[in-house]
């Protein structure tokens, strides 16, 4: 019973590939993330998988060659917090599919990816910016639902989804009294545990009232088992300390998102192996939960040994229209003291490890999927462009909607419109 439910819930899919295809990216400065940079390096991808990375690697016969001389080559970037495919136009309710109704603020059961819009106009512009993989997650309530890790290429949700569920998302931003919220989370987790040991009695109606619906209690099982991480949005030190405590009590694989004051408990987070999803720009005490917000948060966390996953939380449209701006969060974080290598790691290997896909993405090494970006220069710089983006070894290109608009209006008036 339990296994079959999970089999349905856990879609781990790989997009079907066309026939044999070999790509060689040659002559660039390659940043494999695992290991030092390689000057004049070559990356070979066969049938969607990386087969070789290094200097002096031979280009296989018949390979499509991408000349990367003078360019920087990195793994495809990962934005660990987006609404891609779930929200099209933020202010238009009918285009929002990221908030479930839930029960009393709990929607643990919610798996938004079946409602994912593979035709979203946001996807091409995100991948043109060098994102190949993102977390797309629900919002609302205090347990919002489950997130999917998706690659930005595919025409159905099954093709887009790399791993789902990739995480459970919850929030400590929805507060009556903080202590009450922590207790409610404990009660929810305890009841989910209790439910798992008494499924039969529950089905017969021989159960006290539990803190959530059956679907929610089921959905929390992999969180309790530590196979699905729980990401808890929390800014205030008090909230982050509660995350550390509750994660220890229930042996959860937890992460903190936003984490304005995470730097205050950096060593505790490092010790508890709790990664932090945060940006590299915010510094405003925007509410009483984030009085300690500081630009060098990521740098301080990293210094203490915390795994940092960068998100575009300083850009109001960093989850939908401009998730690619996350690379500027990295640039600013580096400006504030993070090492450049850690900046790249926070956009590649760190999220891949945190979401359990580091064997496939987040680095350039034989056996990994061919998610690769060729940049005109330093990917954290504004002047730099993603010149070639490959997802599972296939180049994704073509103008986004906004590219088409600016092409249309490149000369005024556009063709077919009257001159004033």
């Amino acid at each position, binding site marked *: 019973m339990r296994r079959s439910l999970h089999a349905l819930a856990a879609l781990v899919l790989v997009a079907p590939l066309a026939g044999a295809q070999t790509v060689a990216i040659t002559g660039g400065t390659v940043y494999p993330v695992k290991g030092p940079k390689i000057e004049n390096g070559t990356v070979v991808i066969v049938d969607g998988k990386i087969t070789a990375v290094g200097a002096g690697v031979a280009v296989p016969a018949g390979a499509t060659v991408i000349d990367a001389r003078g360019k920087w080559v990195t793994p495809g970037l990962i934005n660990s917090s987006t609404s891609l495919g779930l929200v099209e136009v933020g202010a238009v309710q009918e285009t929002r599919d990221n908030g479930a109704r839930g029960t009393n603020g709990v929607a643990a059961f919610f798996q938004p990816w079946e409602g994912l819009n593979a035709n979203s106009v946001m996807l091409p512009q995100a991948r043109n910016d060098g994102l190949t993989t993102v977390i797309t997650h629900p919002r609302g309530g205090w347990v919002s639902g489950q997130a999917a890790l998706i690659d930005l290429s595919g025409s159905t949700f099954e093709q887009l989804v790399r791993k789902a569920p990739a995480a459970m998302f919850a929030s400590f931003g929805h507060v009556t009294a903080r202590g009450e919220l922590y207790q409610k989370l404990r009660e929810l987790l305890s009841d989910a545990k209790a439910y798992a040991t008494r499924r039969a009695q529950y089905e017969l109606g021989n159960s006290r009232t539990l803190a959530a619906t059956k679907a929610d209690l089921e959905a929390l099982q992999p969180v309790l088992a530590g196979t699905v991480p729980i990401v808890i949005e929390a800014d205030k030190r008090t909230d982050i300390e509660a995350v550390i405590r509750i994660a220890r009590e229930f042996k959860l694989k937890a992460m903190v998102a936003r984490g304005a004051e995470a730097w205050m408990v950096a060593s505790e987070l490092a010790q508890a192996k709790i990664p932090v999803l945060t940006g590299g720009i915010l510094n405003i005490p925007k509410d009483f939960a984030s009085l300690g917000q*500081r630009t060098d948060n990521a740098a301080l966390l990293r210094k203490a040994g915390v795994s940092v996953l960068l998100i575009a939380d300083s850009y*109001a449209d960093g989850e939908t229209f401009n998730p690619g701006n996350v690379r500027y969060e990295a640039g600013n974080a580096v400006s504030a003291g993070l090492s450049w290598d850690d900046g790249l790691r926070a956009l590649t290997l760190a999220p891949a490890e945190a979401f359990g896909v580091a064997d496939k993405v987040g680095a350039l090494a034989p056996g990994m999927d061919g998610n690769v970006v060729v940049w005109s220069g330093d990917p954290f710089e504004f002047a730099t462009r993603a010149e070639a983006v490959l997802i599972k070894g296939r180049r994704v290109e073509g103008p986004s909607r*906004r590219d088409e608009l600016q092409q249309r209006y490149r000369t005024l008036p556009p063709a077919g419109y009257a001159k004033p």
Partner: protein
Amino acid sequence: MRHPVFVLAAFVPLLPLGAQATGRPAAPDTARKATYVAGALSVPNADPFPSTYRARPARTVLIRNATILTGTGQRIDNGAVLLSGGKVVAVGATVAAPPDAEVVDGTGKWVTPGLIDTHSHLGVYPAPGVDANSDGNEATNPNTAQVWAEHSVWPQDPQFPRALAGGLTTMQILPGSANLFGGRSVVLKNVPGRSVQEMKFPGARYGLKMACGENPKRVYANRGPSTRMGNVAGYRAAWIQAEAYRRRWEKWLETRAGDPPARDLQLETLAEVLRGNIYVQNHCYRADEMMQMIDIAHEFGYKIRSFHHGVEAYKIADVLAKEGISASIWSDWGGFKMEALDGVRANLALVHAAGARTIVHSDDAVGTQRLNQDAAKGMAAGAAIGINVPPEVAITWITSNPAWAIGLDDRIGALEAGKNADVVLWTGNPFSVYAKADKVWIDGALAFDRGDARTWWKTDFELGFVPVTMGGSR
């Protein structure tokens, strides 16, 4: 259509303090010499909340060996700037300096004018963003031309010092965009003040915030306007009243027969727009709506100084150029609502290439700290479609062009002799993500020095509450 009678009268610094004793309004011809008395009689254009800004003591400073972007389109490599008496005295490849000048070595660094934001809500939407301090939108009537943003500004907003650390020296604080007429803006210098008056830019004009499109019709859906045509009817009805009010006052000033007309704060602001004294700062996203706003301006004989947000400005950039209307826009923010859906990254570059005055604005407390970074994104988007905007031109988007939009281009926004010494020394090319403002001068006084904790500014609110001065951005 427009009457120049009050042109000087509204110009605050020209109001002689001594005139307060005269106690009666002057005849129209003397009105041009601005002898109106603040608060003494019920006449428009008084200055009831005068600036009490005082420049801090300024030393004579020579910055040399730096790359200088003048804000006038020039770039001087390995150049020097001399500041003295609160003014820019000289800029060039070599500059003669008096022996007592403090020398700042700019090797490897860049120098620009202080940055200017035409669209800020600092102080009116301060941090922390609690309801008690949320004072930016008087969303009680579609026309609140009578409100003045300065009466909502909280000078202890922790967002001010963070903007200073980003090189921002001057900002126009606007009311929000809930209303067709949101109220008067105020131009502030980014300095600590116990009152907003201590931050007010002496002699700056007021602006009038107007808003098109979705916001007013959403906010007033139940009482109207609930449509775009309702919005337009609302603007026109108000201008008709304002025109009548302006004529009533002019007639009385000519004849001075009987009692003066009753003052009306709302109409006073609108009449000042019709006289050309207050600049229209018009929130508007869509190209077709901007075109309608231009027609309304023609109908009533006023000018729009800047369209704000204008995510579709690139569609009518030729018209903006012809009309002399500036575009206060973002590099890439968009997509969040229907009227913002057609935002493109080359908006800045396309508007610039069409010859219209291009401005990077923020409307955001985070963005206002990094206008240079937003401009850099716009440069990159231009380059991607073959419009190359060099740094010496892009810097005008965040200095001299916004100075023009708020009517202060004769005083700020450029490094040239006689201009106010609002200057930023950057750690490198300001359009690099790694560059930071190293030192910032306002009127020649050192307002921020990244390396000197004595210059770091912590607002009253932050004492005890906020553990890190200037959010770690120092």
